[in-house]
């Protein structure tokens, strides 16, 4: 480690004795005390001058009338406005007003399902929870599942059928569709084309096939800009056929990720993270797994790795080839690059030592060659069928999507298309730049678009048909292992919308059946069981079709596969495209929760950026928030720089999914459009990027400005070996004052005493907890201006710190909710009793009593309190009101708020148990963050009962309290992080 280099970069070094032990640092500009960097630090903060000119506040002007009502409701001496009660006319069965109902369904994230239970209050879906029986969820959720409920209520959804912008009825549309399709029948429908997203839904697949049967000349194209293009090509190279690959991390002792962010992104990541963490922090932690990560940009998985090697996108292929060769994969020669020999030898030895219990995971966006090499390595290591499972593809029809889209584009250009039916997707926005999809679309006679949003593609099409949200209609979908879920509607469609199923059915059997009939019919035909009704009910109820996972395959490597590998060339700065961790390919761009969710490593919100390594940035003479022009093969786009530690040299990573111009009020104009640079022959990047500095800067809103721990003992960590030698290292490093060290007598909590334990070894920085908290607790979104003004409202945040060499640092994640201190400093200073302790030791926050002195926030050492500086809560938009949790007070202007351990859930369980005259069982109350957490890093419960899981975890010798020396006695404590580096490999340990 470059000790001498980093030492003088730490500003507080001179004062902190801890500095000698650990060196932490933060955002790059602070690494240097140079005047420019100092200046940057100042300009990094936004002037508030413009805050009353922003778009949101203009809207707010109208909101004030409504707001004053809301405010009035919180005051003591104002009469409440009269309220009406509207009872049911015919009460539905099982519905008890005041109790939520849960329905099983599945969230399609990029066409791949995650099984969930949706909480509904009087028919309103309000919150998504994981489905414990579903293999992709196991009770947890991804950020996308959590945020999907907000998509349902997105006020910018497409709301009505229109033709050239004029409102039309469903009947008008059907007539027009028939009129344009009927003349095509004579040519067998040759001039009729269907373009969809990747389709994994069997019933939709069947519908499309039926339409194709009706129009034998018609063609069906699929296009997902961030799909598994490389994986398919790699599988074809290696096996000669397409396979779906998934991994069993619960059986893997050694994991090698080749540019894969499998813990936080991509299909199955929720399950993968779960298995990975269980293998890492299970039992007495003496048998940890080991993760090597070779990656082309800093990701959550890379930060979690025991050894991380930043390599440029193209270099990873060379590394994989060398590694494969050293593993003895047949028919392979080394690349001859001789790079990182110590890594090659150490990793290959480690993998070989764990044959059949290790796994090589290629990133979805890596090159086909890397996928093929990974298959070959897994095969050579005997992992097939053990840690690596192959199945048939999830898609109804696996195609080379780029080639097929190219064909469509050429046909459109040549005028060979009369009717183009686009179901989902958003090709005008996200098709490769060289396809010029938008211009060619206009050469089609009739263009029809079915989409959830009125997006870039919709506005370019003649017919816009709103699509139902998956919570509004029937459907089916597949999970990463092929498990099928029948999706059921939870609410009637909010708008005049239709599903793709229904639309296709109106072509097949006019006027078309309901989605329910279509899906049920399909399954009746497919299943053919005589007790179908029972099977159907059970499948719908359980949220999955039993035993529907695809059977494992054992594909054989082609003998000549290695010959088809080619060596990538490289020159200049390399450009790498990545799907955004939250917005994916841009489809979630109008989801404000995801827009404002801090990006895993950079904590950026509301923008994407060009990620450069510190050294490359210095070389190019650019700094954070500098505006630059990216020039890639002659295509240009303006973007902002963000210096990312751990990024390989001479490499720029940019995320897809931003810079949309017709996504709605949240997504429009957020970030820059990376698709404008994306060619069809270099989907995931290539070399030759030119970066020209423009003389302006552009503020980027990050929620964490400082990513160095300043030598403070905030995150305790040790290697597995160190822990073995010194199991009590935690108590040596923290300074918890003895309980007697106080003038005051103790409070005793004799009943329940709620507490939380957060295992830092398990946390993988996926941020599902943050969105879950936001959904559960009615937390408002504040917008970029206010994030810049440091007023983000997340009750739970994940602090990300870096340590070590900026070129390749270690990263640490620490979720920080309210600590619920027993000696809470915040309570002491509240003048109006608005925050104080409940009898079960919760740090209550009484919103309606708060007058807003903000003293509590000042006195909170953890800074977990959030304040409604302005009217952040949306009191106007009807749709967003429907999402709100009725069990949590909606806070208005001028009120402090914070995490309460989801006290509404505690009280509900408390009441339920008392009604039943029993005690609350362990695990009966789960906080929203705990429930969403894929890795079970968060455990909550009564610490007075020593049999409870949380009490057991707190009794481990890894348990420590954050800032224990302040004697706040937090109820939330952490388990120190353990890592398992390979003693053979020195670097990045």
């Amino acid at each position: 480690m470059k000790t001498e280099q980093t030492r003088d970069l730490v500003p507080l070094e001179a004062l902190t004795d801890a500095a000698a032990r650990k060196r932490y640092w933060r955002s790059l500009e602070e690494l240097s005390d140079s005047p420019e960097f100092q200046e940057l630090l100042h300009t990094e903060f936004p002037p508030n001058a413009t805050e009353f000119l922003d778009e949101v506040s203009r809207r707010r002007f109208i909101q004030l009338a409504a707001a004053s009502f809301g405010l009035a409701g919180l005051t003591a001496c104002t009469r409440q406005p009269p309220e009406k009660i509207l009872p049911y006319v015919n009460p539905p069965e099982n519905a008890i007003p005041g109790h939520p109902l849960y329905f099983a369904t599945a969230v399609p994230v990029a066409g791949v399902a995650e099984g969930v239970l949706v909480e509904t209050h009087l028919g309103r879906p309000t919150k998504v929870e994981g489905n414990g029986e579903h293999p992709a969820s196991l009770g947890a959720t991804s950020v996308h599942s959590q945020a999907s409920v907000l998509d349902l209520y997105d006020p910018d959804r497409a709301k009505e059928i229109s033709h050239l912008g004029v409102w039309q009825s469903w009947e008008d549309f059907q007539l027009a569709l028939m009129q344009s399709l009927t003349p095509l029948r004579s040519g067998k429908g040759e001039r009729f084309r269907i373009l969809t997203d990747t389709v994994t839904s069997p019933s939709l697949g069947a519908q499309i096939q039926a339409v194709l049967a009706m129009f034998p000349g018609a063609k069906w194209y699929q296009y997902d800009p961030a799909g598994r293009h490389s994986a398919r090509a790699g599988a074809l190279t290696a096996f000669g056929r397409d396979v779906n690959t998934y991994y069993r991390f619960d059986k893997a002792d050694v994991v090698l990720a080749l540019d894969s962010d499998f813990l936080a992104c991509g299909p199955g990541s929720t399950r993968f993270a779960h298995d990975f963490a269980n293998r890492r922090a299970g039992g007495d932690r003496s048998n940890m797994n080991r993760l090597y990560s070779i990656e082309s940009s800093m990701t959550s998985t890379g930060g979690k790795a025991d050894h991380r090697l930043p390599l440029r996108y193209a270099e990873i292929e060379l590394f994989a080839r060398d590694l494969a060769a050293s593993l003895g994969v047949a028919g392979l020669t080394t690349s001859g690059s001789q790079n990182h020999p110590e890594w090659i030898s150490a990793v290959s030895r480690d993998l070989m030592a764990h044959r059949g219990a290790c796994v090589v995971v290629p990133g979805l966006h890596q090159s086909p060659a890397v996928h093929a090499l990974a298959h070959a390595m897994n095969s050579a290591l005997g992992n097939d069928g053990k840690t690596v499972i192959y199945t048939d593809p999830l898609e109804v029809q696996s195609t080379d999507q780029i080639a097929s889209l190219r064909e469509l584009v050429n046909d459109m250009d040549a005028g060979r298309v009369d009717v183009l039916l686009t179901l989902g997707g958003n090709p005008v926005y996200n098709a490769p730049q060289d396809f010029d999809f938008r211009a060619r679309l206009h050469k089609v006679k009739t263009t029809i678009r079915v989409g959830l949003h009125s997006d870039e593609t919709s506005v370019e099409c003649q017919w816009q048909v709103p699509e139902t949200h998956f919570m509004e209609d029937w459907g089916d979908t597949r999970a990463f292992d092929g498990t099928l879920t029948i999706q059921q509607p939870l609410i009637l469609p909010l708008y005049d919308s239709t599903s793709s199923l229904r639309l296709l059915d109106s072509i097949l059997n006019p006027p078309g059946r309901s989605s329910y009939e279509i899906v049920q019919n399909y399954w009746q035909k497919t299943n053919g069981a005589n007790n179908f009704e029972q099977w159907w009910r059970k499948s719908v109820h359980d949220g999955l079709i039993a035993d529907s996972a695809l059977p494992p395959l054992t594909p054989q490597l082609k003998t000549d596969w290695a010959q088809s590998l080619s060596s990538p060339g490289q020159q200049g700065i390399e450009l790498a495209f990545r799907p955004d961790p939250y917005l994916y390919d841009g489809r979630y761009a109008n989801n404000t929760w995801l827009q404002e969710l801090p990006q895993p490593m950079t904590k950026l919100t509301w923008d994407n950026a060009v990620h450069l390594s510190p050294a490359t940035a210095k070389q190019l003479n650019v700094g954070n928030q500098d505006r630059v022009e990216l020039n890639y093969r002659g295509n240009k786009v303006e973007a902002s720089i963000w210096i990312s530690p751990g990024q390989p040299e001479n490499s720029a990573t940019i995320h897809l999914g931003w810079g949309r111009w017709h996504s709605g009020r949240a997504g429009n104009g957020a970030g820059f459009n990376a698709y404008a640079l994306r060619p069809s022959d270099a989907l995931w990047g290539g070399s030759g990027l030119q970066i020209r500095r423009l003389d302006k800067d552009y503020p980027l809103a990050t929620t964490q400005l400082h990513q160095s721990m300043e030598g403070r003992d905030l995150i305790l960590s040790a290697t597995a070996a160190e822990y073995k030698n010194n199991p009590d290292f935690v108590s040596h490093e923290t300074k918890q004052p003895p309980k007697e060290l106080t003038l005051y007598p103790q409070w005793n909590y004799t009943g329940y005493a709620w507490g939380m334990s957060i295992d830092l070894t398990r946390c993988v920085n996926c941020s599902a907890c943050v969105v879950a908290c936001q959904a559960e607790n009615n937390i408002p979104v504040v917008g970029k201006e206010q994030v810049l003004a440091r007023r983000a409202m997340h009750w739970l945040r994940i602090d990300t710190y870096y340590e070590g060499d900026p070129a390749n640092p270690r990263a640490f994640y620490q979720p920080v909710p309210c600590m619920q201190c027993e000696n809470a400093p915040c309570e002491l200073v509240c003048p109006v009793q608005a925050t104080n302790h409940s009898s079960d030791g919760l740090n209550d926050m009484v919103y309606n009593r708060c007058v807003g002195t903000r003293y509590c926030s000042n006195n909170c050492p953890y800074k977990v309190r959030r304040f409604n500086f302005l009217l952040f809560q949306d009191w106007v938009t009807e749709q967003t009101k429907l999402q709100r949790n009725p069990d949590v007070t909606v806070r208005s202007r001028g009120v402090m708020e914070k995490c309460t351990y989801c006290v509404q859930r505690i009280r509900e369980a408390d009441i339920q148990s008392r009604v039943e005259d029993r005690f609350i069982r362990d695990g009966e109350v789960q906080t929203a963050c705990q429930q969403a957490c894929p890795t079970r890093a968060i455990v909550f419960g009564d610490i007075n009962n020593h049999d409870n899981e949380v009490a057991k975890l707190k009794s481990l010798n890894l348990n420590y309290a954050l800032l224990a020396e302040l004697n706040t006695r937090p109820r939330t404590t952490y388990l120190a992080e353990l890592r398992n580096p390979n003693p053979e490999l020195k670097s990045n340990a």
Partner: protein
Amino acid sequence: MRIGSSTGPLYAYAAEFDGPTKLVDAARAVREAGYKRFEAYSPYPVKELDEIVPGWNPVPALVLFAGIAGAGTAWIMQSWIAIVDFPINVGGRPLYSWPAFVPITFELTVLFASAAAFFGALGLCGFPLLHHPVFNLKEFGRASDDRFFLCIEARDHKFNVRKTAELLNEFEPLELWEVGKD
């Protein structure tokens, strides 16, 4: 002898002086002569008159009692609210966190005592008292400027039109005024 106010029955004789020396001398003589209902007026406090002009001063005692009342009020209020009225666990501190009650107890002590001093003093003066017979004396306006007056009220049992005037004239007042009641 000049008439200060022509109407009404006689209120008092007022001797006008131009300095404190004669006023004090005259007042002392008046007191020694056995007059009880007399009053000296000066544009600033003349300490020597305190022993001469009769009267008692209850202000300090008032202030003391008010201060004790303030302290008691504050302490009892805070303790009662924290312990009896709505006992709440605030930051793990005991209900009777007496050190925290000290500042307000002090403040209320001062507040009560100050109010007592202010209202006590003005109240003892009989204020507000906008109308007073002595204002019938035209020249009395200068009592707040540069003149000093010694008044002997006609009510005094020793008051005698001739003798009293003689007594006052002994001290060579600038003028001796006869002040009427209306």
